[in-house]
C-alpha cells in the first residue's frame, strides 16, 4: 500500500475547487435545513440554474461572465419563489418531495432536445469561463507542498471559490446571530410559538429559501466555472444527498459545519477510492468481490452507509450540539 499517494490525493481533493463548490452549496443548504429546518431536497436544482445561468449566458447568448453570474443568481431567486410560494404553506414533507421533483424536472428539461439550442441538451456547454481564467493573476507554474500540487489554473479557481466560501461564512455568522437569524432558529425549534409571537413564519421561510438558494446557485456557478463545462447529468438528485451527507458530517446548524464537512467528505471519499483501488491491484480484495470499475459504486454505497450511521449515532455531526439538532417534522 502506497499511503503517501493516498493521503496526498485526499488532501488535494479536500482542498480542491470541487470541495469548495460543494461547501458553498452546502452553506446554502445549511441555512435551509440547519437553521430554518426546511427540508429542501432540491438544492441541486439551484446549482443547476446557477451553472446554466452562467454557461448559457456566455456561450449561447454571448454575454459577459459578470452578466452570466447575475443572470444565474436571478434564476435561483425566481426558482426559490416559484417553489416556496406554494410549498412553504404546506407541511415539511411536501417541500421535500416538491423540491426533489423540481430538481428532476429541471434536469430533464435542460437535457431535452427541446432546450438543446440554449443548453446544449445532453452534451451540455463548454468553455464559457475564458474571461475568468484570463483574469488569473497567478503566474504559470505549479504550487503546493509535499505531493499536494496545483497548477496555476486550479489554484486560481480554488482560491476564488474558497474566498467566496470565507466571505459567505462571515456573512452567515453575522446573519444567524442577528435577530433575523434568531427568528429562523426558533422556526426550526417551534414554528407555532414563533407564529404566536406575531412573526410571519411563511415570509421568514421564504427569505431563507431565497437566500440559501442563491448561495446554492453560487456553488453551481463556481463548479461550472472551475470545470469549464456544464452537463445536465452531473446535476442528479444524488448531489443533494451528498450535500446532506457532508452537512450532517460537519454539523448542521453550525457556520463551519458545511466547510469542514465538505473538506472531510471529499478527503474521505478519495481515501476510500484509492485504498480500494490499491487493495484490488495488490490482490488484498479478490476479483470476485470487487473489481476496479466497481470502486466508484462501492464508495457511493459507503456514502449511503455513512449517512445512515451518522444520523443514527451522531446526528449533530462533528461540530454540532446534540441538544440543538433534535429536529422533528412539522
Amino acid at each position: 500500500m502506497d499511503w503517501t499517494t493516498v493521503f496526498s490525493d485526499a488532501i488535494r481533493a479536500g482542498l480542491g475547487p470541487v470541495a469548495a463548490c460543494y461547501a458553498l452549496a452546502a452553506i446554502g443548504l445549511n441555512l435551509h435545513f440547519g437553521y430554518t429546518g426546511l427540508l429542501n431536497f432540491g438544492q441541486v436544482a439551484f446549482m443547476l440554474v446557477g451553472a446554466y445561468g452562467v454557461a448559457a449566458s456566455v456561450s449561447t447568448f454571448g454575454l459577459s461572465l459578470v452578466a452570466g453570474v447575475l443572470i444565474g443568481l436571478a434564476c435561483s431567486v425566481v426558482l426559490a419563489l416559484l417553489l416556496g410560494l406554494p410549498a412553504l404553506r404546506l407541511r415539511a414533507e411536501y417541500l421535500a418531495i416538491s423540491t426533489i421533483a423540481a430538481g428532476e424536472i429541471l434536469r430533464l428539461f435542460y437535457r431535452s432536445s427541446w432546450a438543446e439550442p440554449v443548453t446544449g441538451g445532453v452534451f451540455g456547454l463548454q468553455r464559457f469561463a475564458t474571461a475568468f481564467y484570463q483574469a488569473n493573476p497567478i503566474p504559470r507554474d505549479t504550487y503546493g507542498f509535499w505531493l499536494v500540487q496545483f497548477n496555476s489554473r486550479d489554484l486560481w479557481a480554488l482560491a476564488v471559490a474558497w474566498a467566496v466560501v470565507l466571505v459567505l461564512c462571515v456573512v452567515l455568522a453575522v446573519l444567524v446571530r442577528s435577530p433575523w437569524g434568531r427568528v429562523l432558529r426558533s422556526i426550526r425549534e417551534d414554528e407555532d410559538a414563533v407564529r404566536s409571537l406575531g412573526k410571519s413564519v411563511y415570509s421568514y421561510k421564504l427569505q431563507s429559501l431565497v437566500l440559501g438558494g442563491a448561495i446554492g446557485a453560487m456553488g453551481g456557478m463556481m463548479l461550472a466555472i472551475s470545470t469549464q463545462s456544464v452537463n445536465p447529468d452531473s446535476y442528479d438528485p444524488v448531489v443533494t444527498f451528498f450535500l446532506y451527507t457532508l452537512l450532517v458530517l460537519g454539523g448542521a446548524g453550525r457556520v463551519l459545519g458545511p466547510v469542514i464537512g465538505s473538506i472531510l467528505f471529499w478527503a474521505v471519499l478519495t481515501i476510500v477510492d484509492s485504498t480500494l483501488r490499491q487493495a484490488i491491484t495488490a490482490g488484498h480484495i479478490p476479483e470476485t468481490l470487487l473489481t476496479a470499475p466497481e470502486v466508484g459504486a462501492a464508495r457511493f454505497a459507503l456514502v449511503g452507509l455513512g449517512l445512515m450511521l451518522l444520523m443514527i449515532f451522531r446526528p449533530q455531526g462533528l461540530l454540532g450540539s446534540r441538544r440543538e439538532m433534535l429536529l422533528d417534522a412539522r
Partner: protein
Amino acid sequence: MRVHRLLVPALVVLLLALGPAEAMAPGTEAVPGPSGLSKALQALLNGVQFGSVIAITAVGLSLVFGTTRLINFAHGELVTVGAVTAFFFNASAGGPRWPLILSTVLAVIAGALLGGLIELGLFRPLRARGTSLISLFIITIGLSLLLRHLVLILFGTSPRSYREYDLQRAWNLGPVSITPRDLTIIGLSVLVLLGVALMLQKTRIGTAIRAVASNRDLAESSGIDVRRVVLVVWLLGGALAALGGVFFGLAEVITWDMGFRLLLLMFAGIILGGLGSAYGAMVGSFVIGIVAQVSTLWFPIDLQNAWALLVLIVVLLIRPQGILGRRERVG
C-alpha cells in the same frame, strides 16, 4: 391562495395551446390527420399500463407513510431488488434459469423479506429510541444510496431483459395495438390492486391498517397491535414493490437505477391521490402514468416524466390534500 386558483388553470390552458404548435416545429413529425385519434388512444393505453406499474409500487409507499408518517426514500430500491432478483433466477448466466413465473414468485418473497428486514432491523429499533421523523427520512436516503449502489456492483450498469416474453407480436384491437405481455401486465396489476383493496376493506388486518393510518394513537388504544400492523405493511409494500419491479422490467428493461427513476413518479401519484391513502395512490398513479404517456403526443418523449412531475407541483398548488385525501390541515 386565490391567485393560484386562477393561475393554474390558465397555465394548463396555455400549455395545451402551446402543445400542437410545438409539434409543428420544423424537423418534428406533424401529428394531426386521421391517425390522430388512434394515436391518442394508443398513448392512453400505454399510459394505463405505465400507471398500473406505478400504482402497484406506490401502494406500499403510501401505506408505509400512512401508518408510520415515514417518507421512505428507499422504496424505489425495493422495486429494483425485485426486478433484479427475478432476473437472477430467470436469466442470469450463473443462475438457475427458472421460468419467469417461478422467478417472479421468488422475487416477491424476497421483496417482502427485505421490507420486513428493513422494518425489524432498522426502523423499529430507531422508533423505539425516539429518533425524529426527519432523521428517519434522511436515514432512508442513506439506505437508498447503499442499496442502489450494492445493486450496481452486483448487477452492473448495462440494461438487461428477462429470458421469456421478450419479443412479441402486437395484437391489433381496433384502433390500438398491444402485445399479449403488456395486456397481461395490465390485467394482473388490476387484479392485484383489487386484491389489495379487498384485503384493506374486508379482512381484520386490512381494517387494522386503515385504523392505524387514520389515527395511530386511537388505534393503539383500542387494542390494535400497531407494531404488527406496521410490519405487515412493510411486508406487503416490499412484495408489491418487487412485483411492480418485475412488471416494469418486463415492459421496459431492467437497470440498476430503475426503482429510483420510478420513485418520484410514485410520489407524484400518491400526492395526487392524497398522501397516505392507499386508494388515492392507485388512482393518482394511473393519472401520472397517463399524463406521462399522453404528453408524448405533443412533446418530446425525453420529457414525459417531467410532465408527470409537473402535475405533482400543480397539485400541491391547488389541492395539496390530493383527490382522495382528507381535508385535514396540511400547512
